[in-house]
């Protein structure tokens, strides 16, 4: 496999005519070689535009894109040794699977016999042997994704770029496809940049996650770090389902994750290092064995609606319409400045 390289962006900016703010705003990014980097954010945050600039499909208004240390601004996509998988897979509808996979090799003017061998190697790797002579419209969603991957793989690129490739699959298929992609990455080890708006996907797949909003990077880090120590309230609420609970208190916002709260009587007397508060339960949802308690939290700050997630292992009976004592470990509390919404240390 071609050597994995690092992708860097330096001050990368993209302004579209008619937009009131840049679609991508001064983004500095650097991947490790062979890393699986996820760009995560809501629609319109600029993640796809950023990916397209790395690919060479859009020209930056400002800043540089570097691949393997070389500045590639102005280079057309084909000269950048990248491969891309689109949300729609963008398979050539009038070509067979084999012809789709061979297409990039044809463009590189590789002779037919070598082309065939390479294409068959890629198809074999992705289990497409029996489908080589079909056309895209005869394939299922999962099969089309594999063809798109084979076509990307066959060029031996230094970087893989994936633009929400799982959005078109239904839920069940998505989980399997996700595993396939991770396996694939382990096998080939190419630097991969993956764009998604689905935080579950991001958490499950990335070596590191880049959380973006409004064209800017809010936080970069391994999934665990971004989840446990969000830099601001946006990251805190974007990751995690249900999102982190945020309770205003004076000039600070107190945050805790739904799964970090427990009924007080589970801990009995061993309450030091924990903060006590009360939950007035309005509604209980049963989801996959967990109980999601929707209610009003008091004692932490202003009374605020929160969600608490109790795993099945917590057996405490809970009834809607009753108030219970709850606790959260102090180490699990996060604090954000009311004004800037950025993380800060415990003011207490």
């Amino acid at each position, binding site marked *: 496999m071609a050597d994995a390289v690092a992708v860097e962006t330096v001050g990368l900016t993209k302004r579209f005519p008619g937009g009131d703010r840049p679609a991508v705003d001064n983004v500095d990014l650097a991947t490790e070689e062979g890393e699986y980097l996820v760009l995560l954010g809501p629609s319109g945050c600029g993640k796809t535009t950023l990916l397209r600039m790395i*690919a*060479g*499909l859009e020209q930056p208004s400002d800043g540089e894109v570097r691949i393997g240390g070389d500045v590639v601004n102005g280079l*057309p*996509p*084909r000269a950048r040794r*990248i*491969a*891309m998988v*689109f*949300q*729609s*897979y*963008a*398979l*050539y*509808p*009038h070509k067979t699977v084999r012809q789709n996979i061979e*297409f*990039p090799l*044809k*463009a*590189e003017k590789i002779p037919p016999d070598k082309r065939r061998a390479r294409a068959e190697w890629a198809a074999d790797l992705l289990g497409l042997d029996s489908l080589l002579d079909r*056309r*895209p*419209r005869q394939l299922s969603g999962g099969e089309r994704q594999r063809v798109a991957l084979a*076509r990307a793989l066959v*060029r031996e690129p230094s970087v893989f770029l994936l633009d929400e490739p799982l959005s078109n699959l239904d839920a069940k298929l998505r989980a399997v496809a996700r595993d396939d992609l991770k396996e694939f990455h382990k096998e080939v080890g190419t630097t991969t940049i993956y764009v998604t708006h689905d935080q579950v996907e991001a958490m499950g797949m990335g070596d590191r996650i880049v959380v973006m909003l409004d064209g800017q990077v809010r936080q970069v880090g391994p999934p665990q770090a971004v989840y446990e120590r969000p830099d601001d309230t946006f990251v805190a609420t974007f990751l995690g389902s249900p999102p982190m609970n945020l309770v205003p208190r004076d000039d600070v916002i107190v945050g805790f994750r739904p799964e970090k709260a427990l009924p007080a009587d589970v801990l009995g007397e061993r309450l030091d290092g924990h903060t006590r508060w009360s939950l007035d339960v309005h509604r209980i949802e049963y989801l996959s064995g967990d109980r999601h308690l929707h209610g009003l939290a008091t004692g932490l700050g202003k009374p605020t609606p929160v969600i608490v997630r109790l795993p099945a292992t917590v057996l405490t009976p809970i009834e809607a319409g009753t108030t219970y004592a709850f606790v959260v470990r102090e180490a699990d509390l996060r604090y954000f400045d009311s004004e800037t919404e950025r993380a800060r240390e415990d003011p207490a």
Partner: protein
Amino acid sequence: MTATSAPARARVTDREGLLARLMLLPAIVYILALVAIPFVVAIAYSFSDVTAGDPSFDWVGLENYRANLDDPVFRRSLWNTFFFTAATMALTVVIANIVALLLTTDFRGKWFVRFLILLPWTTPAALGAIAWLFMLDSLLSPIDWILWQVGLLDEPRHMIWLGSSGWAKASVIGVQVWRLVPLAAVIIMAGQTSIPDDIKDAAAIDGAGFWRRLWEVTLPLTLPVIAIAVLFGAILTFTDMSLVSVLTNGGPVNQTQVLASWAYIRGIDGGNLAQGAAVAVFLLPLLLAATIGILRAVRRWEVG
């Protein structure tokens, strides 16, 4: 059948079967009365001896057809119709593809260029022919003047564009192409823009340069649309009499006659409706063959 909720009986405006028929009725009646029946009548005429002077209908069997087949002008018209259309469409398709590609890229002044490119088609055919009458006039042609200035032409300083058989034919084909390219380009452009952007991006990433993208992606995917453009263009050329009438009037010496113009000359100028009909009937098999052929091809080329 749908029924409205409150009144128990469905109103006419809801009885879908009835409504369907009523909505179709005006168009069907019109077409029956003004196309279907005249069509049959015209074919009947071709087997008769009806003329403007003698409108009585007498059956003469295949007499008119035999007379036509013996007539060298008719035979020439038949050949010309076919040849002009084929040549015109071949040239038009190539040029229109280039123009369509041009119009799908961005450049400054694009609106103005587009306006100019549209001019040949938006002008009535007869008036476009008038413009070219001057351009190709044996005495006043500006083209001749340019050729003379450039040295490609010396005394006598005139190309007889419309007066010599070969050049006249070339002129007819040329002006038809000039007229049809905008229409074909617009249709093909519609097809080119309906190729999903993703596929164009994928081709760019896959390393395809301009020519490969054109040949292996754009053209194959727009083939159905190109076929439709050819179909419309061919129909327009087959049935058009105005260009030939105004530009050459079928001349010189009937060398550029086509079926449409010849039918007119026989039928109206000559007053012999029956013979005019017999000439025009020959258009039908050509049209039908072209349409069926092209629509079949379109069906085959449609990709999922």
